[in-house]
């Protein structure tokens, strides 16, 4: 049993890990940058150490500082959370060298899965399906043969590419030669390299991932899937478990596949194997995340397994006491990521002070957050305010509960995506689980309220004016009797609505 654990992270995930440690009886050590002195993870930990300026590169990412605090405080283990040093194999190695337990997989597993090409190779060897394609740069003739083999539509992509340059979607055979020529010419002018590869184009793809939990004694289990198809700018916004789309057969096949790839790298701890899925339930390996994920709560809600606690127990050498057949899906869970951002302005971040926060509560509602009235959302870190999670006996129950919970949220001071999330929850296709990664682009009408209910807002504004303290009271004789009456009411009898 670890007696003291350092949490090398901030925000809601640090809070989440601190709570797990407390429940396991371990003392907790927080680290914080200048920008985070008032963050909740500092307040909730047993000990807290300052580690530098706001920029992650000068604080949360400085391996030596983290190790130094661990030694000073006597922490026996470090939980890295997600982001920051969580997938940094040299940090995991440094911990090992310094005799501190890194709560996560081995440095080797992080390294293997961290390199996309190596990861693909391992997946291939483990007979994990990859998106069919040319497996690297090809000549024009090879390209044509590959396209013929994998079937249309195909994507031609520049090997040196990025940002859509040198990329061409080819819907049928006749267009291929011409598209290939254009892609190569664009690739040459953009990157000085005209080599291209060919891949099957997945129409309306879904993002489905499998949660892995593996102990240090060779037992590797999966905790079923999460669907994370609702994305904006390639970042997940709404996640759920289970996926309403998978058949039981596909579920089992994906689970087995994910276990296979985890076993191939002697995985231990919690990890996630991400897949892209087409409209016929064919799935293809994307990558493996060798850490806890933002959306882990939905899996916890449907399995009853506390993933963060098990990560710690596994790092302590504990064996997983359950087997695959003990695990069952119970009900349905949804997660909405509440961001300080403006959906109407292309999801532009909206940092600032949260003048007021009222989070929803109630049965089946879980709010993983680290915000409070007065908290400042800085531009140094991700503008996620909260992960709102609901559980219900059915997807419909969880969904209605989410609408009710989102409607209870109150956040003043910054723009948020709460209204947008409510509209997604109410939208017909989402209700029918007809979703894919293009969902948000397909529904621009959800980005702003079509007919906002402004009269209650105007009434509230008028009521607020009535209750406001006069801004100046500089003796210019303008204060009216009515003002004073209002002030008196505000100060003395504001709880009685009838006078």
């Amino acid at each position, binding site marked *: 049993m670890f007696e003291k654990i350092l949490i090398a992270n901030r925000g809601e995930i640090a809070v989440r890990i601190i709570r797990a440690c407390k429940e396991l009886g371990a003392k907790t050590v927080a680290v914080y940058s200048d920008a985070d002195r008032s963050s909740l993870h500092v307040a909730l930990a047993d000990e807290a150490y300052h580690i530098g300026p706001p920029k992650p590169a000068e604080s949360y990412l400085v391996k030596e500082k983290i190790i130094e605090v661990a030694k000073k405080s006597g922490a026996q283990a470090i939980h890295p959370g997600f982001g920051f040093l969580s997938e940094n194999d040299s940090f995991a190695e440094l911990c090992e060298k310094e005799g501190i337990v890194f709560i996560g997989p081995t440095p080797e597993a992080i390294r293997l899965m961290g390199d996309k090409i190596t990861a693909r190779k391992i997946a291939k060897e483990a007979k994990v399906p990859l998106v069919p394609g040319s497996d690297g740069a090809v000549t024009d003739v090879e390209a044509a043969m590959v396209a013929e083999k994998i079937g249309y539509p195909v994507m031609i992509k520049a090997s040196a590419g990025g940002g859509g340059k040198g990329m061409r979607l080819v819907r049928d055979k006749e267009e291929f030669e011409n598209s290939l020529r254009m892609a190569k010419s664009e690739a040459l002018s953009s990157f000085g390299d005209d080599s291209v590869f060919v891949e099957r184009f997945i129409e309306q793809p879904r993002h489905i991932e499998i949660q892995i939990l593996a102990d240090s004694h060779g037992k590797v289990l999966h905790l079923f899937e999460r669907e994370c198809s609702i994305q904006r700018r390639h970042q997940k916004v709404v996640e759920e478990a289970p996926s309403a789309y998978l058949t039981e057969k596909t579920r089992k096949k994906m689970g087995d596949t994910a276990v296979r790839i985890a076993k191939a790298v002697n995985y231990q701890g919690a990890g996630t194997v991400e897949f892209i899925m087409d409209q016929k339930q064919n799935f293809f390996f994307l990558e493996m995340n060798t850490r806890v994920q933002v959306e882990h709560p939905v899996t916890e809600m449907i399995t009853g397994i506390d993933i963060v606690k098990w990560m710690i127990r596994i790092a302590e050498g504990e064996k997983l006491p359950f087997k695959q057949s003990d695990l069952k899906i119970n009900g349905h869970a949804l997660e909405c990521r509440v961001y300080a951002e403006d959906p109407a302005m292309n999801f532009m971040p909206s940092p600032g002070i949260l003048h007021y926060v009222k989070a929803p509560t109630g049965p089946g509602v879980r709010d993983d957050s680290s915000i409070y009235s007065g908290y400042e959302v800085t531009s140094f870190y991700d503008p996620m305010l909260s992960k709102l999670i609901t559980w219900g006996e059915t997807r419909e129950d969880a969904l209605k509960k989410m609408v009710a919970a989102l409607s209870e949220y*109150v956040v003043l001071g910054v723009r948020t995506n709460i209204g947008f999330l409510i509209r997604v929850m109410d939208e017909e296709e989402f209700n029918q689980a007809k979703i894919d990664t293009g969902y948000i682009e397909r529904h621009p009408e959800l980005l702003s309220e079509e007919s906002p*209910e402004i009269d209650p807002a105007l009434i509230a*504004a008028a*009521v*607020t004016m009535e209750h406001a303290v006069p801004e100046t009271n500089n003796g210019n004789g303008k204060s009216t009797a009515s003002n004073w009456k209002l002030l008196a009411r505000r100060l003395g009898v*504001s*709880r009685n609505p009838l006078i």
Partner: protein
Amino acid sequence: MTYSFKLDNQIYKVNIEEDDSGVVVEISGEEYPVEYTKLDDNLYSIIINDKSFTIGTFKQGKQIQVFHAGNLYELEAISDRELSKSGAMGSGLEIISPMPSRVVKLLKSEGDTVEEGESVVVVEAMKMESELKALQAGTIKTIKVSEGDAVEAKTLLVVLTEE
């Protein structure tokens, strides 16, 4: 007391009066019986016609943020003095385009009479249509634009005369 608020570049007049029978709020000619209480510094429970609303508000100077059912409304309190300054925001007798937009529809013709709060022009900006309303009752004197016109922010669109 009457308050004027600017919201999404439209101006709204809200009158709130209190007597022995309770509070009545009037917006654009519509009257609402209102009953309210403060839950905490930023949260009001407001009962309007037996309907219950829980609304968060935050006031800083003239800026008022209102949060209701997932939506944030950013209002600005406009003083009578500012309101009557012609030009900048339009007096009660002028209808001004709040932002760069396109005139979608003219709902009135010259010589028509309008009530306070009645919609006169529909404009479209950022893919959204907004109705511009008369801030006081009057008669349409001049309409300075045609349907389909693209207009800059703060362009004078319609001039009214008092009845």
